[in-house]
Every structure is written in structure tokens, then in C-alpha cells.
């Protein structure tokens, strides 16, 4: 388990950066969905993976679509997107999707759009580049989540609660950016560089 933690100042900078990146993602999602959409101001938390698993335990949904996408570079890790059944059905309705496969493809696309645009922008703000792997999706009951060993590989998680608001319906989801110690150290460095430049 990692001992690296972010200071309050570092967290503030990260929050700012995430806000910028998130704004960018909102616009892209709106374009993708070809509709007016707004994303609520994100609530961003940074926590240890163990805390995240505890938090997942507290969620009382029957099943969620869970998609992940790995990214590589100086800042590397895996982003994950949770979307509950009801929100997924709303997405299907909006995009006039007919089959389950189309729906899953659309969720992957949404994952890709949200996490790529967020992570790319975040990387850009910190003067680096990231490359994305293909996303993958599974539909799993939450109580099996802590059996997902890949989660335990990571030490820190940036959690972004998000809500896409359409004119007539809502799509709720949660984005997690999971990172390992090496990347957190790099991130900490970059955040400090930005902090110094601001002084």
C-alpha cells in the first residue's frame, strides 16, 4: 500500500486541472450524443484503492456496467467508468439503440470519450502525452467488485462523480482514474511545478 499522499495545495491544483479537463469532456460528450447536454460540476476525491472498494460496497445498485480503459505514458494507469442499469437504458433510448451489443458499444464509447478527453487534457496541462488501449466492458454485480484483482494493483484513485443532464433524462456515472505509485509521484512533481510557476 502506498504512502504517497497529496497535500491540500496539490489537491487544489489537481481539482482545478480536472475542472478544465472535465469542461472539455462535457463539450465532446455533447457533440458525440448530438444533443444539448450539461455535465454537473464534478465532485473530485482522491483516495486509496482500499477506501474505494469500501465505498463500492456501500453502493446499493443491483448491477452496473463497468468499463475500463488503460492508458500509458509518463502518467499511466487505468480509467474505469461505472454506469447503472437505468442510466444505460436512458443512453440507449437517446441514441435509438436496438440491441444490447449496440448499447455496450455505446457505453464503451462514452467511457472512451469521458476518460480519453479527461486524461488527455489532464496530461496536456502537465506537458505530457498519453496513449489509450481498447476499452473493455463487463456487467458485474458490485459485491464481486473486490474480487477484481486488477483494482488492487493500484494505490491511488481519483474519483469523479458525474451526471450528464439531457433535456428529458439523466445519465449518472462515476469515473475512476486509477494510478500506481510511480505515476502518483510523477503527478505530484508536475503539480508542484505548476504550484511553483503560480507563485
Amino acid at each position, binding site marked *: 500500500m502506498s504512502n504517497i499522499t497529496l497535500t491540500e495545495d496539490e489537491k487544489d491544483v489537481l481539482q482545478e486541472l480536472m475542472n478544465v479537463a472535465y469542461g472539455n469532456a462535457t463539450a*465532446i460528450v455533447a*457533440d*458525440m450524443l*448530438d444533443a444539448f447536454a450539461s455535465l454537473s460540476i464534478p465532485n473530485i476525491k482522491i483516495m486509496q484503492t482500499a477506501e474505494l472498494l469500501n465505498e463500492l460496497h456501500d453502493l446499493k445498485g443491483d448491477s452496473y456496467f463497468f468499463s475500463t480503459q488503460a492508458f500509458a505514458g509518463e502518467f499511466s494507469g487505468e480509467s474505469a467508468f461505472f454506469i447503472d442499469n437505468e442510466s444505460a437504458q436512458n443512453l440507449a433510448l437517446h441514441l435509438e439503440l436496438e440491441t444490447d*451489443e*449496440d448499447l*455496450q*458499444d455505446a457505453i*464503451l*464509447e462514452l467511457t*472512451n*470519450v469521458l476518460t*480519453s*478527453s479527461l486524461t*488527455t487534457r489532464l496530461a496536456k496541462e502537465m506537458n505530457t502525452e498519453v496513449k*489509450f488501449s*481498447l*476499452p*473493455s*466492458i463487463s456487467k458485474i454485480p458490485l459485491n464481486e467488485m473486490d474480487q477484481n484483482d486488477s483494482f488492487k494493483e493500484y494505490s491511488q484513485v481519483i474519483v469523479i462523480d458525474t451526471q450528464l443532464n439531457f433535456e428529458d433524462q439523466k445519465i449518472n456515472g462515476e469515473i475512476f482514474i486509477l494510478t500506481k505509485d510511480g505515476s502518483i509521484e510523477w503527478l505530484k512533481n508536475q503539480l508542484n511545478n505548476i504550484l511553483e510557476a503560480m507563485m
Partner: protein
Amino acid sequence: MAEKSTQQYLRSNDVNEKLIASIDNGIIILDEELSIFYYNKWLEIHTQLKEVDVLNHKIDEVFTNINGKTLKRKIKTALRMETPTFYTATITKYLLPIKINQLKISGFKHMRQDVSVIPFDKEKRLVALIITDQTNVTNTNNLLQSNIKKVQDLNNELIKERETIDERVILLKIDTNNLITQTSRAYTDLLGFDKESIINNDYFYLERLQMPVALKEEIQKHQREKKVLKFEKVSLTSEGKEICLLSTLVPQYNQSAQHIGFIIFSENITNAKLLQEHQEKLLRNSRASAMGEMISMIAHQWRQPLSVINTIIATLKIKKELDILEDHLITSSYNRIEETVSFLSETIDDFRNFFKENKELKRVPMHIIFEKSNNLLRSEMEIYSILYEEDIDEKLLITTLQNELVQTIINILKNSVDAFKENPHDAQKLTVKSYESQTCITIEIEDNAGGIPKDILQKVFEPYFSTKSKNGTGLGLYVCKTIIEEHLKGQLTMRSRDNKTKTIIELPKNVVVS
């Protein structure tokens, strides 16, 4: 120098073009409206379409399976984000319908593809579709998934079976030091102890109060020899109730065949034991009541010979007083008395033999069985004018426990005689016959003493059921059925029609009694 010239050569040639031509991926360049601008060699080979034939055509017109709306959305998003969007083989399966002919890929008709939609030229609004063959990976993945499913199913089955065993099988495991390592729920539920209070306790210490020393030594001997042992023992529940267990000690080994302890499986035989004790008690009671009945039969049987002796003695006495007693009369009287006394003695012998514990199989003629049965009832039948008819082949032999069969027949005959007493009429008849088939010997006893109503007939073999107005213990037929079916391994049935009742005993020819 050589290195430098190679580098110069590579720079003077279009490396990218060469690589793209030989790369093991499909590459298509499209604009936002899905028109094809580039179609590489890999695709020409796999789709059997030449680049010249598809250029400037819309991809969803060349491949009609493609959903143009979705693809346009992905292109637009990729260009907007400046990062790729994707199709995945696991979800979309394939974008281009490329047929595959590999034998080992049995499940798929078309190549499974991952497709990356890469922003290629933002100004010209072009994207490159990179198509990767994922058939083998997807196939392996599917096989893996189906095997995972099988393993999960098996696992679920195992868990269920384990739960059933835990719930139903009274089991405990001990290690080589006799410390209890595991107990089933059935065990703790039966004895009313907490699992925690039993685990890590010494088995013999736990059982010290109820286990006889000899049994403990026997178990320990089998433990040393690592042999299976079946034993009966009493255990006490947490409430102090006695439970009778039939246990089996089985040595336990781990995967490397190393001896790690013993499993003790047990069966709760408390109820069976109680039933057995109850039956034994009933049989004892029935013997006592049979003895009483037989004594009254002997009294009947003796009345006539005793009066014969009495008459002879009186005659002798009168003749002596009148002084007309002749020697030949004395001799004939002695002989007559001797015969009669011998008959009386035989009756007593029969009675005594009958109550001897004799569990040995004997081969006897069937008519002898009936003779012995009738000895005690004959005079009663005469008194009540019951016509007795017997149809038994003199050569018919039976291997049986003689006393038990005689007791049963007496009981049945006596029931008929009693029925006639309660329901007398002019043509009272008792018929017995016996015959053999290939596998069994049948005895039929029939009376015309009025019959038995159907609802009563169903209950006659129940213990303590009696229709007799007095002195009926209600054990007679229940005991008869127990003897015939459990001791002699035969069958006893009763039918009643009109005013007749027929009792049928079927006995196996090759009898192995318990």
C-alpha cells in the same frame, strides 16, 4: 559506415509506405461521410476487393452490414477529441465481414476484429481505421469463459453438496493427535454444542464419560493400524439426553498420501434402537400371553384324559370293593392309564419345547407342524363342533424355526376358534392346506366364522388391536406378522370375503433367518 548508409537508405525511401504495405493489419482511410480514400493490401487480400474498386465509395455501401450512423459518430468523436475511438471484438464482433476458414475456430464464421478509429488529418476531416485480427484471442477468450462457467457451475454444485453434507451428515474430523479439527452442522445440531466449543478438543476427552474402556482401546488399535472401524456408542447432548450413534472411523490422507487424521461418520440410531427394544418387549409380552393361553388349552386338553383316568380308577375301586376285580382288567386298566398319562406327558413336553429358545433351523414335515399346533386345540374344536379339514401332502418338508412357526399357526387357529365362539353356527369349518411352488411354501388357513369387515381388516396387524370381547391382548397377529416377515423372511396376509377369512403364509424355500 555501413550503418550510416543504411540510415541514409531508409531516409531516402518511404519507410512508412513499405511498412504499411506489409503490416498485418487492415488500414482504411475515410472521411466523415464514410468515403474510402485508402484501402491497404491486407484488406485487398482478406476482402478480395481491389482498392481501385472501393475508392471513393462509401464504406457502408460496400459493406452493407456496417451501421453508418454509429461509424459517423465514432469518426466525429475521434476528430473532436483528437484521440482514437474504438470498436471491440468482444462487443461488436467485426466491422468488415471477412470469412475465416480455420478448422480450429469452430464457433465463428467471420474474423473477429478490434478497430481503432484514429484521427488522421484534422483539416481534411480524415480518419484511419486500423483493423486487427482478434479471432484467435476472442476464440481463446470464449473457450476460457465457457470453461470458467463450467468451473463455476461445478463449484456451485460442490458448494451445494458440501452444504447438504454439512447439514445432513453427522461428521467430525480429528487429527493424528485426536484433536477435533472439523465438525459438520448436523453433528453440532444433534448434540446441541457450539462448533467453537468442540474444535481443538481431544476426541477421547470429549467422549470420556460415555465411552467404555474396551471401545476406546479398540478405536485406538484401529487408529494405530489406520484401519476402518464401525462401532456403536452413546453420546450425551448438551441437555444430557442420550443419543445412540453408529459410527465409522475412516483414516484420512492428504493429496500427497500423507496420513493426517481420521474422519468419524455417524448415524443417529437412537430411534431404531428404541423401536428394536420396543419390539423385543412386545415379543416378550406376547410369549407371556401365549403361555397363559396355552395353559388354558392344556387344561382343556387334560380334562378328557383325566376323566378317563378317573373313570378307570373308579371302576377298579368299585370292582375291588365288590371283589370282582380280575387280573386282566387290572392289566388293561394299567395299560390304559399308562397310555393316557403318556399323552398327558406329551402335551406337557410340547408345551415345554415350545417355550425353549431354539433359533436353529430344522427340516420338518409340514403335517407335523400342524399336528403340534393342533394338539393343544383339538379338544376345544371338538367341544365347539368345529369341523377341521387338513390338505397337506405328507411328503411336504419345510426348513424353518419350528417353534416360531407353530406359535404363529396356533395363534391363527386359536383366532378362528375364538371367532366361532363369538359367532356360532351349524356348519363351522376350519380348512388348512399347504403346498409348494418353485420358490416358496404356502400355508392357507380358512374359517367360515363370519368374516372381518374391510375397515377392521386393515388394522388387524397393528399392535394392541383386538376385536375380542375379553382376554384379547391385541398382540397376536402383530407378533405373527413380525415372526413371519422379520424372523422367517416370509409374508403374512389376510383376506376376508362373504363370511370367510383366509390367512395366507408364504415362506421362502431357501430361508436365511436373522
